[in-house]
């Protein structure tokens, strides 16, 4: 069986779903990076918090909609707390300090989750059944499509169009775009720093909550390192795509998710052991050839700032 032969329609559909989820995560990271020049590594733990909310809600017997609502509430609240307690005091610091600070936050949130789940549950994870029905498949034209794939694609399309409208057509969207290119000048013109940053963090939070629902539907056992590895892969995708612009970042996230999906489905596991090495070697190659990003126009100065 050749590798190419193994890539079928089924495989592509699954890969699209993963690409959509990773693309959404990339948007969340890119939005905050745009206005704060901050790579929020703890973004993955926002998603984890959402997943735990879903899990505990299903344990408490809440309905699916109640659980999803709670998930959005928790993730958005946590995003805003993070902005006020961590991002805001560090806003003027070097990107390296900010990145390491978000590592610490990420580590802290993971340890809290582990502590809680160990204490309450006596084990490292907890199942989330509320949204599990999303993982069921419907058959379309001979291809089994899990509902979550369809939902992921719809959510991604809706979220991206909504965001494009917001950024392109509204005053605050214009202000966010301006702030993302030159924050100081935007402030000189009267654009409120707190307002655009809070909005970016809020939007990223909403997206994180949506991603939490989607990821929990496809991997319904929630542990403290939930979304951690996805986050790392997305981060790689975002930088490889070009973190300076929202759309190149998003494309990078989607591309790496799609690639991962195709490869996961196509390769028998015993053949894919060195695949991570090959992929990361490719990442290095792309970065050397195009440091500002695969999809970015030229070399840009912003990337140099970290």
């Amino acid at each position, binding site marked *: 069986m050749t590798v190419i032969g193994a890539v079928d329609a089924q495989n592509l559909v699954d890969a699209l779903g993963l690409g959509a989820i990773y693309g959404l995560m990339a948007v969340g990271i890119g939005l905050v990076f745009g206005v704060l020049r901050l790579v929020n590594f703890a973004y993955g733990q926002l998603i984890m918090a959402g997943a735990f909310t879903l899990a505990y809600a299903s344990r408490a017997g809440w309905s699916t909609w109640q659980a999803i609502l709670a998930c959005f509430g928790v993730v958005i609240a946590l995003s805003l707390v993070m902005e006020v307690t961590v991002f805001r005091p560090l806003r003027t610091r070097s990107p390296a300090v900010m990145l390491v600070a978000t590592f610490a936050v990420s580590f802290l949130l993971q340890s809290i989750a582990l502590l809680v789940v*160990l204490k309450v549950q006596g084990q490292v994870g907890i199942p989330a059944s509320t949204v599990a029905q999303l993982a069921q498949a419907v058959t379309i034209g001979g291809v089994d499509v899990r509902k979550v794939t369809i939902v992921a694609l719809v959510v991604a399309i809706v979220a991206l169009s909504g965001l494009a409208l917001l950024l392109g057509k509204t005053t605050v969207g214009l202000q966010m775009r301006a702030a993302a290119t030159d924050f100081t000048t935007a402030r000189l013109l009267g654009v409120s720093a707190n307002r655009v940053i809070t909005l970016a963090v809020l939007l990223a939070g909403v997206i994180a909550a949506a991603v939490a629902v989607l990821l929990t539907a496809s991997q319904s056992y929630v542990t403290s390192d939930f979304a951690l590895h996805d986050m790392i892969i997305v981060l*790689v995708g975002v930088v490889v795509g070009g973190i300076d612009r929202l759309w190149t970042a998003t494309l990078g996230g989607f591309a790496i998710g799609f690639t991962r999906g195709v490869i996961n489905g196509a390769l028998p596991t015993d053949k894919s*052991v060195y695949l991570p090495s090959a992929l990361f070697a490719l990442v290095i190659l792309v970065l050397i050839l195009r440091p500002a990003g695969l999809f970015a126009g030229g070399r840009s100065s912003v*990337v*140099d*700032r970290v």
Partner: protein
Amino acid sequence: MRWTRSLSELAPPALLVVVVGVVGSGTSPARQIDFQTALVSVAIVVALYVFVGNSGVLSFGQISFAAVGGYAAGVMTVPVELKVGTLPALAPLLRDHTIGNLPSLLLAAAFGAVYAALVALPLMRLSGLAAGIATFAVLEITHNILHEWTKIGPGAGVLSLVPETTGMLQATLGALVVMAIAYGYQRTRFGRQLRATREDPAAAQAVGISVHRQRLIAFTLSGGLSGFAGALYVHQIGSLTADQLYLELTFLSLAMLVVGGATSLWGAVVGALAVSGLDSFLGQAESGVNIGFTLNLPTGTRLVAVGAVMALVLVLRPTGITGGREFSLTWLRQLRRKERTA
């Protein structure tokens, strides 16, 4: 003048490490492990500091050099007669030879340095986030290979039966050696040039400093020291898996560095010792410790507290505990004055 300055900057962190070593030697064997771990952490963090601290460029790759060093030292010191049983797939060259403790440390340093130099040649042209992600890719590749390739090691299994030669004495000496080399380097012309590129890359280039070459030198040296520290690590624990020298240690060592103050050797040492100290204190507290009253924390609090302290220090004092400066008496005086006014 130069000498007194060197002495006043290098002596305090060295003294601190010696004190930790001496105090540690007086404790129970079980306690000693915590002290040894702290000292090995000093070696790892100082090795990281040589590149990250001096260049100002974030690297997630340094632990992979520690991993390569750790594996090299570990695989080569397991007695030949034991290797056949525990590492059946090992390449004959590795299987049929064993080296002593000191050669294994040097071998690890050499491996780390060579690997780092190879990686640095293309990578040091990058800076910023691109450099960060590229070094991260190195970590991933290294982990992947060490985790899968059974010709050079245990693969996904455990490398065990490594002689536990990193006792209190070797841990202390090892940390001191790494610190002395790091300090020696930062006082050379190369070190000063690299620090200039950190402060103002454009100006440094304008006066003819090659950013690429200086970063390459520091990266290689840092790789060698990391390899050495990795060897100390495997000889302390006596066993090794690929996951031990991977993501968690990468983040933890970076956090230690930044918490201490990323731009000084003093900061690297203080950060490593402070975080390790807190970690092992809380580890004890989880099984009950007497500090006037009996403190008994639930399992898992340790990680939460360490995370919280790291986050707090970074938010409240982003330049780290030491402010990123070398130890000096004026610094101490300023600190005291601040405390008095606060």
